């Protein structure tokens, strides 16, 4: 008997979390879990790796910092140095105090926007993107586990029923989206 794919629905986040833990313990593969809100501890229960997006953001901020310093160094010091309002513009080190606000703003600008763009790209979010949640109620009050059935379908089903699943649907293996 070939393995089937199951869509298992729950109506409570705590029951869902226990069920996910149980499924992982039985070594059945979970493709995805769809929830209407962030369920705390779900990523750990699914053994998802922590996200690296904040580390990436640090580097995005460094890019913004560098761009700001180089831009103002070129414009104010190299290209056309002028003494404006007694603020000396002939070396970077003398003029840098009045560059601090813009260095800060550009660091934040680059870090925030590149981070959000990374998030949207990695999670496949953009205008005109079709939603991929299999059931519309998973953005309302239902929780859905998209999982393999494991080697023994009926045993898995009994286990899920016992864990509190409100519906179990067998779905045909679709081509990967």
């Amino acid at each position, binding site marked *: 008997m070939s393995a089937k794919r199951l869509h298992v629905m729950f109506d409570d986040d705590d029951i869902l979390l226990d069920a996910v833990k149980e499924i992982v313990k039985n070594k059945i593969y979970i493709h995805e879990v769809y929830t209407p809100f*962030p369920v705390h501890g779900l990523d750990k229960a699914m053994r998802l790796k922590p996200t690296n997006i904040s580390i990436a953001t640090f580097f995005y901020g460094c890019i913004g910092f560098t761009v700001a310093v180089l831009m103002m160094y070129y414009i104010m010091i190299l*290209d056309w140095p002028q003494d404006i309002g007694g603020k000396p513009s002939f070396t970077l080190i003398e003029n840098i105090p009045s560059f601090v606000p813009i260095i*800060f*703003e550009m660091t934040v600008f680059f870090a*925030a926007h590149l981070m959000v763009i990374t998030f949207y790209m990695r999670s496949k979010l953009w205008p005109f993107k079709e939603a991929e949640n299999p059931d519309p109620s998973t953005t*309302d009050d239902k929780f859905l586990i998209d999982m393999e059935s494991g080697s023994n379908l009926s045993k898995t089903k009994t286990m899920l029923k016992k864990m509190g699943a409100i519906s179990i649907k067998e779905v045909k293996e679709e081509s990967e989206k």
Partner: protein
Amino acid sequence: MSSHYEAPIRKPLVLGDKSYADISNDIARPVETPPDRDWWIAFSISMVVFLWGLGCIAYTIGTGIGTWGLNKTVGWAWDITNFVWWVGIGHAGTLISAVLLLFRQKWRMGINRSAEAMTIFSVIQAGLFPLIHMGRPWLVYWFFPIPNQYGSLWVNFNSPLLWDVFAISTYLTVSLVFWWTGLLPDFAMIRDRAVKPFRKKMYSLLSFGWSGRAKDWQRFEEVSLVLAGLATPLVLSVHTIVSFDFATSVIPGWHTTIFPPYFVAGAIFSGFAMVQTLLIIMRKVSRLESYITLQHIEMMNIVIMITGSIVGCAYITELFIAWYSGVEYEQYAFLNRATGPYWWAYFLMMSCNVVSPQVMWIKKIRTNIIWSFIISIVVNIGMWFERFVIIVTSLHRDYLPSSWTMFSPTFVDIGIFIGTIGFFFVLFLLYARSFPVVAQAEIKTILKSSGETYKKNRDK
């Protein structure tokens, strides 16, 4: 479940016997039902006022800045007053969504969406003033360091006005993506329950195809946290830089080191007052009393009281430092402020900003909706006068007594200011009818710990 424990001493943040589905229904209701007559009346009035403002802007651009009441001595008046006022109002949104997120304040969740919307709409109003004061707004790109045909002609990075350009544009765009990222799951909720095909299409477009995968949520939470961490120093820097517009000058009354913290406190003060004004009406009209509770109003009143006291301290410190400095020009600037021809503006500022929020020490008043509403309006009037006092009274008696003068606004000055208020309400009223006005996905995460029924059953 023990994981949803919250101390019984904390009052519930979601009132009534709500389930997850109830939350979705309550938040989607204003979007799914047609607006009533009152909404149309409010919208029409705002629209007329906005159009009047647009007319005044067109007149200014067509004829010139001479249509305003500015003169040689008072070269900055209502325009910059309105700019600072609107930017200040915007600050509460970021404060509620970012700073309170870092401090793990759960009461933030009922109000953050509308507060952020208010931030974006008011920063748009603020941005209009420098734009039209340029006289030729189509040359706005001259603000930015763009290589040009004039040779090595660049913007001046030593100027606080340019710092402002970078600060305001960073603030507006970062607030916008912060707001939109939080909106995605809520747009998705409305999309998935939409029956009409047009609505479904619109909200699919707005929700960027949000599906609520576990990995998406993991990234979502991390992104929200890091954005909050970035937005917190950003919001403090924005009003600091706005205050530099004055503080780095040599005008007595402006050249003050206390300006950055004093402006930031004032901004939070006026912003919370505006959130209060808007939400007291919205919770009633959109029937959101279960999510924006009396406790939320009380919390905001406490913030208003504290920041009002900080602002009061700053006013008195300014007076003290003027005396203590021994600089007679500085001393005169402050004496003139309090007792000169603009004494009435100074008096309004002092009574609205320092005295009126002090009544919030009384619990009966700060938990009274009518009182909260009145004081929130009084505070915003006071904060407008604060900026007027700082700007106009410092300028109108300058170095040469022969050029001493007064400022009186023309109908164009007044029209543009009123027009921005109209524009703000046009945007906010449209928002209240088309956006999920409470962050429902976040509210669902605290339902089991802070929901009234859940709390009651657990505490038994």
